[in-house]
């Protein structure tokens, strides 16, 4: 399996995601409503040595991707780790319309660009009734379009979806997802989860490997289910040639210091850390603190 980048720059700070304070989240949303402010942070991150970014396919990601594409000479070397889908979009649509009309809307409305005619050719009703896997492929294609022309290394499924599907205990879905990503897009399949030990156990049981698993890992034990101890056991036993592990939420939404955080993280058998920050000083100190073994 191709090696993933040790340090990946995340995007939560740009989209008002803060697990600790809604006020802080709103302040960030306001600041980063202006795309120039987003690129100022990216430029700072690249100055500090960051060479990889994670970006969720939310409603603002398209404009950000456009900007990266338009400045390919400046940002050419960047490795991309997109995550799909943007869960809120689906949650709201499903609430309003019901599941099948919502999926149908995503697939067949507002998608006139980029080969959607071909998708329609695959057939709506048939997709729903006979082939859930085809439906999944089409949803991936719709979400992936936004990242066309960028140097994608790994495509992640958001934890809301990964964990929802994981609970159903259906091998075929994970098998098919990983195969599709590898074959069609020639990138590494990635799964974001808040249940890493459970997910990894299932993947092993199903004989699915060559997967990047991204999960909350922090000294505070925040969002590590079922327990921090279980994570530590699974991480210690992991074979990185089968599963590369990426830590997210390493600062536990600010409940521990950078020092505490990396004293912990650097001692674990991890392949990568994704983090987000918005000040140059903070980015610099975090990048310097990440000393996981390569």
């Amino acid at each position, binding site marked *: 399996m191709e090696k993933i980048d040790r340090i990946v720059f995340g995007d939560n700070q740009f989209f*008002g995601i803060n*697990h*600790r*304070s*809604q006020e802080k*989240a709103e302040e960030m*949303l306001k600041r980063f409503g202006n795309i120039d402010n987003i690129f100022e942070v990216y430029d700072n991150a690249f100055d500090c040595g960051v060479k990889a970014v994670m970006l969720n396919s939310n409603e603002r990601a398209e404009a950000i991707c456009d900007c990266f594409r338009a400045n390919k000479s400046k940002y050419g070397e960047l490795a991309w780790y997109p995550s799909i889908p943007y869960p809120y979009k689906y*949650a709201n649509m*499903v*609430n*309003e*319309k*019901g*599941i*099948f009309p919502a999926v149908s809307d995503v697939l067949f409305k507002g998608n006139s660009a980029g080969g959607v005619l071909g998708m329609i050719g695959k057939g709506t009703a048939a997709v*729903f*009734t*006979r082939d*859930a896997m085809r439906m999944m492929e089409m949803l991936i294609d719709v979400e992936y379009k936004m990242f066309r022309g960028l140097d994608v290394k790994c495509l992640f499924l958001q934890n*809301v979806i990964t*964990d*929802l*599907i*994981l*609970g*159903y*205990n*259906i091998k*075929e*879905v994970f098998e098919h997802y990983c195969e599709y990503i590898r074959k069609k897009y020639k990138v590494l399949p990635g799964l974001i989860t*808040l*249940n890493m030990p*459970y997910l990894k156990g299932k993947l092993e049981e199903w004989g699915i490997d060559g997967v990047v698993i991204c999960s909350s890992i922090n000294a*505070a034990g*925040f*969002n590590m*289910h*079922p*327990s921090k101890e279980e994570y530590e056991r699974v991480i210690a036993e992991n074979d990185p040639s089968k599963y590369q592990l990426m830590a997210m939420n390493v600062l*536990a*939404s600010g*409940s521990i210091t950078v020092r505490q955080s990396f004293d912990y993280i650097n001692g674990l058998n991890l392949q990568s850390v994704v983090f987000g920050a918005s000040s140059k000083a903070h980015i610099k100190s975090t990048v310097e603190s990440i000393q996981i073994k390569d």
Partner: protein
Amino acid sequence: MDKVRIGIIGMGRMGITHYSIINSNPAVKMTAIADTSSLMLNMIRKYLPDVSMFEDYKDLLNSGLVDAVIVCTPSVMHYEVCKMAAEKGICVFCEKPFTTSPAQARELADLFEQKGLVNQVGYVYRFDVVFNKVKEMLDQQLIGKVCHVNAMFLSSTISKMQPEKGWRSKRENGGGATYEMGSHVIDLMEFFFGKPQKVIGTLMNQVYSEAVEDISEAQLMYEGGVSANIHVNWSDYTYRKPMLKIDIHGTKGKIQADLYGYRLFLREENKEHGLPEGWTSVPMNMLPDPCPFYVRGTSFTNQLYEFADAVLAGRKSRGCAFREAVDTQEVIHTIFDNN
């Protein structure tokens, strides 16, 4: 029984989530699904070969395949589904709002108590880590005698004019801000203070909806002189995520809590609990919140695991019992009747 056999009735958004959560529980065997959509059943049938699919919930309840069911139908159907489940000796976890009339709620509570069947309503905030901590602090009487509560639930659920579609847009089906959000707040108050003695000062108003209310308010009086203001608004477009906030004012201090954490103010140091005079702030990520399998928040998992555990052990659930949900239903209908 060594495993609880569970079925789900209604595979909408809640049913889909609940299936994922409870199927992760090693003490549970999922045996049946009922949904009126053949499209849904056909799609999942292939991937869940050990689960029986039914288009009619009655066939599921008659199948002998389940010890317990999770009911996620439109609220207006809860009564008939729960009633038949009780007749068949099947334990029930029922989504909220419990029913669409207090009389129905009372009848179901009586029925399940008579039959000794485990019963629980999906008032999920009882399992929230912050509000559990609030309950604990109230039980410890950290803020002395409680005088007044201000509770608010705000969201941007309905932020544009609503075409009248779907069961949520009709009150008689269980739609509207009072059922959807007010019920959660009223239940949390039941969790903290028990049944209210009086419901006064109610109002409802509309912003975007035509057939249901977008804003709802009530003032409640509890035993011991506790008064409470409840305000819900699901058309507050300034909230990207729903915000549930509660301020509790007592003689010795105050608690301010929301889904992100709590702040405790004490007029004097509390040596017994090691708490200083003045403010103590605790964000939710500092509170231990163990959860065996996370899908949509720890509280969703913990409420369903509690239900399964109660069924397996043949004991009462720690969640909201049908009997308590009757009180909430009565408050909701007083708000409706007064407006």
